[in-house]
């Protein structure tokens, strides 16, 4: 009863200082869900770190070999899958040869999901671009346990980490893998990472030891820790979170999933900021009242 009486005594500012988290949850749910029903065209410049990744792929001549390491699971799919799709779109548009691998067990199947979508798109929309053929235009090496040791061994010989592709075909029998011994035969490495093992390990064991050219797509949480590597040139560029994915889609002039989700994320950010402002106004008002009381 006392607790109820206390609750009734609470002023408006006290209530605003301790808003029930369920109310915040409802506002966030609405802020995320409702914008998905609206089509908007919000202005968004492509940041230099994203443009660098785009340029790295764009500058490759047709037939160049690109290794994409899928180091994430479905938990990070909303952020990293749009990047994966954009990388495939870009590579196949440029007629690049794509080698897929994964340091996470779920990585190679995430690649298959992205490829499945891209192939359907190519069949429906861009009839001029031929659908890539397995083993000739792209290959999925699958997952190998061993984290950074896999990266290290591939620097000497791919076959030491991957004697066969995900379907069990020996690398020596795959046309795309002819002439690919180690990183010397790879023109660019793209890494989609949600944690360990991921971009940091690729920098430490791939870039620093074998001097490979590396660009990455990371979750928004992870991306800030990659900025030092971008500044030193160890990392060509980085796509950070859904925003990085959206900027890449814009650079590619092919707005897709990430761009459409950005409005939702923007509204959610605004709602969080509003709650922070309300919390601080209530905090200062109550503090002022307490000070005045003490002075009296």
């Amino acid at each position, binding site marked *: 009863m006392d607790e109820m009486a206390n609750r009734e005594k609470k002023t408006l500012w006290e209530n605003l200082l301790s808003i029930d988290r369920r109310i915040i949850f409802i506002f*966030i749910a609405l802020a995320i869900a409702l914008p998905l029903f609206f089509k908007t065209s919000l202005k968004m410049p492509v940041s230099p770190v994203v443009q660098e990744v785009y340029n790295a792929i764009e500058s490759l001549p047709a037939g160049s070999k690109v290794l994409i390491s899928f180091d994430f699971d479905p938990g990070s799919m909303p952020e990293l899958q749009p990047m994966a799709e954009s990388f495939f779109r870009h590579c196949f548009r440029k007629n690049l040869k794509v080698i897929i691998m994964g340091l996470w067990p779920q990585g190679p199947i995430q690649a298959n999901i992205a490829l499945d979508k891209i192939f359907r798109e190519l069949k429906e929309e861009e009839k001029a671009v031929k659908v890539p053929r397995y083993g000739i235009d792209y290959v999925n090496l699958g997952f190998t346990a*061993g984290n950074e*040791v896999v990266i290290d*061994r591939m620097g000497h010989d791919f076959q030491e980490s991957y004697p066969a592709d*995900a379907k*069990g075909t020996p690398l020596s029998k795959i046309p795309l893998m002819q002439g690919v011994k180690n990183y010397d035969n790879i023109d660019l490495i793209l890494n989609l990472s949600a944690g360990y093992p991921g971009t940091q390990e690729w920098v430490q064991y791939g870039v620093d030891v074998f001097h490979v050219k590396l660009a990455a797509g990371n979750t928004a949480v992870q991306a800030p820790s990659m900025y030092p590597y971008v500044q030193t040139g160890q990392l060509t560029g980085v796509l950070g979170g859904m925003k990085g994915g959206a900027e890449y889609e814009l650079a590619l002039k092919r707005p897709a999933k990430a761009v459409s989700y950005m409005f939702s*994320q923007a*509204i959610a950010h605004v709602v969080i900021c509003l709650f922070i402002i309300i919390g601080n106004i209530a905090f200062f008002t109550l503090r002022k009242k307490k000070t005045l009381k003490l002075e009296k």
Partner: protein
Amino acid sequence: MRREVPLVLTAIVGITMIIAHFLPPLNSLKDLFEDWFFIIAAFAIILGILNLILVNGNNIYRKQKGWPFGVVVILGFLIMTIIGLGFSGGKSFQDPGTPFYYLYTNVYSPLSATMFALLAFFVASASYRAFRARNIEATMLLLAAFILMIGRVPIGYWFSDWLGDALGKTADWIMDFPQTAGQRAIMIGIALGVVSSALRVILGLERTYTSGE
């Protein structure tokens, strides 16, 4: 012997790996140790599976708190394994169209993404409670977070039009300089910590991994 053998093995492997980095003739030894690592890593997966079954099986057998979740875990594991190994085209089990792929995309993916998406709600609630301008440090953190949250989403650029893109440029500056400087300091600190921890393990000063002491 139970403690001495792991310590000696760790010391030999650790010292060899360090020396091999600078002495190429020792690379064959390094390769051998890495081969062993691959084998151990593969066995670790089997160990993980056995552990999953044992822990959850034990919970179910003893009817411990939350045991029905253990049933779901073991059923989920068995269904995915049996369908993946037996009914999904052998080594092509990850290809689109297989029953394994169907379960992965329609059950595992949404469940996993849902768990991650819940973070948005908790981050919002935690931001509201934590970002209070109680002192100078907290105010700086609050301002930086505020500028980044608004400055790095499209709606921020819309606001920025009125401010001559000041918000976006400030957000980029925070990311490029104070943030990167802080990250670099943390990275160097971690690297030094890793070196000292590795040396302690190699020299046998850190022995907790052998018996938990």
